[in-house]
């Protein structure tokens, strides 16, 4: 009974932490990027200020749109928050641990992307159409690569449940071999492409689907986008380096340690993302399928190495 209460409290804290930290992460990345380029950079809490300012405003909806345009930001936010709550952060074994399936996470991200694309088509403008078309195509290219990474992780752990995978890694049951390194590289490429970071930074795909939102709707959509970025970084941490995470049903003293460990890892990944964005150049849109094909090839190689190495052959 006490254990169940602790796991519930850990889950609520985790959800609140993800909600609070997502705009801060975005602010950190922007600040670091500006610093690397020699500017002073916006303050770290600027995205939070933007969200509060946008929430105070009444939205303006296009006349040609249907009620779907008003509903899509809520569906997008709910799907992104549900996915972010499932990825373990500072604690393993939260109350939603049995639900934290990797295929389900992919499905929730797809649901958020579909909601945004449909709303962009709903307005009936060219910008919305371009954004929806390119975002949908990029999601279609990224899907087999993401599934290949899930396949590799599931071969290593014997399950697609992210919480079980992280627990097994912490216990040392799964080692870190070359195959895992390849899968990590593939997941990093997919995360970059999915977030619209350089080298997959395309104004049309990234901003086109947010073209006609304002007020609280724009606040929800931007918050959801930053939640998805934090979710991908947290997924990389949980799948490949979850050491230091506390046991939700264990002692309360381990929670601050887990929080510190998770925070440090996310900041390190954010720094790496900022460096990658300033160091790399943007790829042409027609080259993006090749980039995701590289991710697919790396993940497929990881799968084959694991098949051979585990003695299934």
């Amino acid at each position, binding site marked *: 009974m006490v254990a169940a209460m602790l796991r519930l409290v850990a889950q609520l804290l985790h959800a609140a932490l993800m909600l609070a930290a997502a705009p801060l992460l975005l602010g950190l990345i922007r600040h670091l990027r500006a610093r690397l380029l020699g500017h002073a950079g916006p303050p770290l809490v600027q995205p939070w200020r933007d969200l509060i300012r946008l929430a105070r405003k009444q939205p*303006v*909806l296009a006349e040609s749109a249907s009620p779907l345009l008003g509903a899509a930001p809520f569906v997008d936010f709910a799907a992104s928050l*549900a996915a972010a709550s499932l990825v373990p952060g500072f604690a393993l074994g939260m109350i939603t641990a049995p639900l934290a*399936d990797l295929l389900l996470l992919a*499905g929730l991200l797809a649901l958020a992307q*579909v909601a945004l694309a449909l709303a962009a088509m709903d307005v009936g403008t060219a910008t919305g*159409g371009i954004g929806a*078309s*390119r975002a949908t195509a990029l999601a279609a290219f990224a899907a087999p690569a993401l599934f290949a990474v899930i396949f590799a992780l599931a071969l290593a752990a014997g399950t697609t449940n992210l919480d079980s995978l992280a627990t097994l890694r912490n216990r040392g049951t799964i080692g870190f071999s070359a195959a895992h390194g390849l899968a990590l590289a593939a997941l990093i490429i997919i995360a970059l492409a999915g977030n619209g970071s350089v080298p997959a930074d395309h104004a049309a795909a990234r901003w086109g689907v947010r073209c006609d939102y304002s007020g609280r709707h724009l606040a929800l959509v931007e918050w959801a986008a930053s939640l998805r970025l934090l979710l991908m970084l947290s997924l990389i941490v949980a799948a490949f380096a979850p050491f230091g995470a506390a046991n939700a049903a264990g002692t309360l003293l381990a929670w601050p340690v887990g929080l510190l460990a998770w925070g440090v890892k996310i900041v390190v990944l954010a720094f790496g993302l900022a460096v990658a964005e300033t160091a790399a150049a943007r790829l042409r849109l027609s080259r993006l399928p090749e980039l995701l094909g590289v991710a697919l090839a790396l993940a497929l190689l990881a799968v084959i190495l694991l*098949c051979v190495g585990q003695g299934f052959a």
Partner: protein
Amino acid sequence: MPDLALGLAAAGGAGLCALGLAGPLRPRVARIGTVALGAAEALVVLVFLAAGAPAEHLALPLGLPGAGMLLALDGLSAFFLLLMLLVGTAASAAALPVAGGAAFFPPLLGAMMLTLLAGDGFALLLGFEGMAVAAFALVLAAPAEPAARRAALRSRGMAGLGTICLIAAVGLLAVPQPGGIDLGFAAIRAHPPEGWRAGLVLVLVLIGVGSQAGLVPLHVWLPSSHASAPVPGGAALAGAMTAVAFYVLIRLSFDLAGPAQPAWWGVPLIVIGAAGAVLGGLRATLEADIRSVIGAATICHAGLIAAGLGLALAARASDLPSLAALAFGGALLQAMAHALAATLLFLVAGAVQQNAGTQHLSRLGGLIRGMPATTLAALAGFASLAALPPSAGFAGVWMLLQAAIAAPRIGGLPLQMLVAVAAMAMALGVALAGAASVRLVGVGFLGRPRTPRAAAAQEPALAERVAMLGLAGAGLLVGLFPALALALARKALLLAVNAGMAGRTGVFAIAAQAEAPGYGAPGLAVLFALALALAWAFARTRSPAGYRTAPAWDGGSGAPPVWLPFGDPATQYGEASFSQTLRATLGRTLLGARETVEAPPPADTRPAHLAVRAHDPATMLLVRPALRLHRTLVRMAARLQALSLRHALALAFAALVLLLLAVAITEPS
């Protein structure tokens, strides 16, 4: 009472065929009678499944002279019968055609029931061919353009090819007995085929069923045939016909061929399934009208189901019953999700055709304003087609992908690599089906209307709306509680792979291994609802209520001219523009898609034209060479008509000599 369920089902099937006679005279009686009979039969089958599905047999005096016909009902046929009756009843309520077509719609249902209730090869083949004949008659009875009749003839030809191959397969499976052959399933089960006969049976069954279910490479005819079927009516049952075709595949390859077949039996199905998933998904993103898109998505889902069945065959032969049950259960769940979604979407397409006047996406748009319930049903159907949680399609795809992830246990590096590549192809196919769904809903139902007719579209009648939303609700129920569908399929799993999903399915979750976490759909729904409530609370407390409307921002472009009341149609993304990225990349390599621009010379004020050409690889590699071969054979045969008397006599003499030689060689000494 013994054999009660089977007797009632057989009586119901005969009643449906009889209702066809009443169709032209009393359409309302036919419609109400079909719906009532279908619903009653579905209830009977549901009770039969809940009671544990004991096998039942019935011998009918009709049929082959001297032998009659055998009917049988067991867990496998009862599952598919329930599925077919559910979607058939909903389709009848909404789409029973008036005038000529009404004579053939109930018999189509009756023929499907005969296929599912068959207890021997004769009844199976009679039902299979009856299905094709009734569907063909439905198309001919309605007035249609020449292109539609050509497509109907093509589908009839493919169905005929399927029946011929199935006749050959049943003939190879039949057991010789003194005085003839025994076509009964019980006798065939006792004498499973071996060696080259078994391999030939597999090939014939794959061709026979593949032409009906849309398996690669026999899928070419499917999208155009669905697009040209008359509305309302035949197309609505396309989902049920695919399910019946898969039933025939399972019955012949899993049940009658016996569990002793080698592991490589699964490999053709896995390869065909993976290829079908990718080709079907890609074609769905490129087709130009609603029913073609649904037909192409049917090819994609048929590929997924076939790949699952292939994995189950390979796992069963490698003595991994739990993996076989996972793969087979996933295939059945996906078949159920697909039948519900496809029927729902064909009903939606019928409603759009009747109320907006066209199926072409380039003449639709903005239907959500006049047809909100239809759009809601379309969203539910396409969410299932795109495998978005928590729909039924996601539950089926989840189980199939879990089976693919666990498949390396079967062993052998070549098989493992094949399964890995096939699983990537399945994931790509699902993602492409998702892209096609977004494209169809975004271009056809959302946005601004492209023609005045689309702007004036209104909702269909109440019966159609109830049927569509009922199917959507059934799909959502299956998606939230997939354990229910798997419980209905429990006996079917035992019959096919001799294992069950015991310990892996519960009300709140389904799992791949016992005592392990899996996919918890109700939990996900609760989590999603809580997140939605949080967003709503945020909006209510932190934001002023209400909203204002203004012309769309559109990047700062000005208002459209006054003579375009719905805005300029050229500034809205259409069906060809939406798929441009996928067409230029995947379409270029897989489907040979080419875009040509014909620009007029300078100072000519005519508009430029963009033409998009794509062809299915199966057309180039299979259909065109087959047509060339056909033409060559016809030319050779035509020479026979111009033979002189001398040559004709010599031909007859040579044929007689060859026949005598054949008899002499093959006669047992």
